[in-house]
């Protein structure tokens, strides 16, 4: 991890609302080159919205997002497409393309985003599948034929297929059993370390967060309420963090529960 110099990702004053619902209310967070940062928070606190704003999939009302020190908020489509070539994304539901075989899902960015020949892209895709523990035969299957854990591994292979500089992981272990979740965590660590990539993960799985994070930030009501080294999260002294990591119903975070 490189901590000095220009941050790889720098987010300042980010605000995003949906109608009257303000989801992000002035987010300030930096991520150093090669760092693995995990953003934790309850469901509906805006973790996915934050990542989508950084990726340019959602347009925030205010704030700035800089990658390698260059502002990205006003990029036009061509500039945005060039920027996105630096990124790999593992989506929460895997988001594999149903109509394509597994190998073509993994090779998609190489073929369509970078204009690589199909045969060359196929070989890279099969190598990436092997790196996440899936054989060549899996490459010919359709996503509908895969288990949840296999889909996550294919999605991970797709996210790293083009050797990205930054990888975003959206709830990488949600819906998996604890053993498969640990397998995915190990694969994330392996892929990120081999590539030397910067990793931004969002999760509410504390086992996963502790394992893959260099630094953890907690999001609550559209704001970062705490951030610090992963090793210090148990002594953060922050009541929001303490309630969240211990999974207590009582505390400053009040879940909205309405009687029927």
């Amino acid at each position, binding site marked *: 991890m490189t901590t000095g110099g220009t941050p790889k990702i720098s987010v300042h004053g980010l605000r995003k609302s949906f109608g009257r619902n303000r989801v992000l209310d002035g987010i300030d967070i930096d991520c150093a080159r090669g760092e693995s940062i995990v953003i934790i928070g309850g469901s509906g606190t805006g973790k996915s919205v934050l990542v*989508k704003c950084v*990726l*340019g*999939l959602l347009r925030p009302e205010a704030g700035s997002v800089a990658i390698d020190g260059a502002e990205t908020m006003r990029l036009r*489509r061509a500039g945005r*497409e*060039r920027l*996105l*070539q630096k*990124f*790999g*994304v593992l*989506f*929460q*539901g895997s*988001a*594999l*393309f*149903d*109509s394509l075989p597994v190998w073509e899902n993994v090779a*998609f*960015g190489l073929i*369509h*985003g*970078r*204009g690589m020949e199909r045969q060359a892209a196929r070989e890279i895709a099969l190598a990436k599948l092997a790196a996440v523990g899936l054989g060549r035969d899996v490459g010919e299957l359709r996503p509908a034929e895969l288990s949840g854990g296999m889909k996550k591994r294919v999605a991970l292979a*797709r996210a790293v297929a083009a050797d990205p500089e930054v990888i975003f992981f959206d709830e990488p272990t949600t819906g998996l059993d604890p053993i498969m979740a640990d397998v995915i965590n190990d694969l994330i660590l392996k892929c990120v370390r081999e590539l030397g990539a910067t990793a931004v993960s969002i999760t509410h799985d504390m086992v996963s967060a502790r394992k893959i994070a260099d630094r953890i930030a907690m999001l609550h009501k559209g704001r970062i309420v705490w951030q610090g080294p992963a090793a210090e999260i148990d002594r953060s002294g922050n009541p929001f963090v303490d309630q969240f990591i211990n999974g207590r119903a009582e505390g400053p975070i009040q879940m909205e529960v309405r009687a029927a």
Partner: protein
Amino acid sequence: MITLLASIGAAFLGFLAAAGRLVIFAGMALATAFSPPFYQRAVLRQMVDVGYFSLPVVGLTAIFTGMVLALQSYTGFSRFSAEGAVATVVVLSVTRELGPVIAALMVAGRVGAAMAAEIGTMRVTDQIDALTTLSTNPLRYLVLPRLIAGLVTLPLLVLVADIIGVFGGYLVGVYRFGFNPSAYLARTQQYLETSDVVSGLVKAAAFGFIVALMGCYHGYYSRGGAQGVGQATTAAVVSASILILFFDYAITQALFAR
């Protein structure tokens, strides 16, 4: 009274906004046709989906349409001894009007719904966001091939539907009412002009574009999981059907009424 006027005004403004969004969506998708990359494989796949796999349903509806048209026109014309006009009425009705409209409505039900469901599912499962993050413009990869396929393939389908529809009329005329086969075919050709067929094909191209556009538009902006995809599918078929009938009248009135 003021409340009523406000409601009407709000509905009208909402309609204009929706029409504007649709036009911008179509313009943005069409604009991607003028710069690389081009997805020829996706276009071919869509043309097979829209054209080849719609042949059975379009062929069946065309033959029954031609047959019932011959039956009804014979019933009408026999009342003033003009049975000889049956072949002409069948061929003009099928090529100018019924071929394109019936084929387009069938394709709207089969293909427009499938497009809305497929793209809608891709939207709610983040597959469209995934395309974007893989440096691929979803409008270029998903929407443009479908628009091209609708525009190019429906005229070909309608050409086939025209032939099958006329054949349906021939079957009823010859085997039900005892027309001489040669005379029936001669009457079919006698008053048929190239413009009759071409006008139907021009309509078909417009209808094919409408079907694909409404399927893609409603799928692309669907929200809220399975229910949202279901609503998008319904909206795609209903709006395409209404627009087909509206533009059928508009095109006939503007260009081909003689």
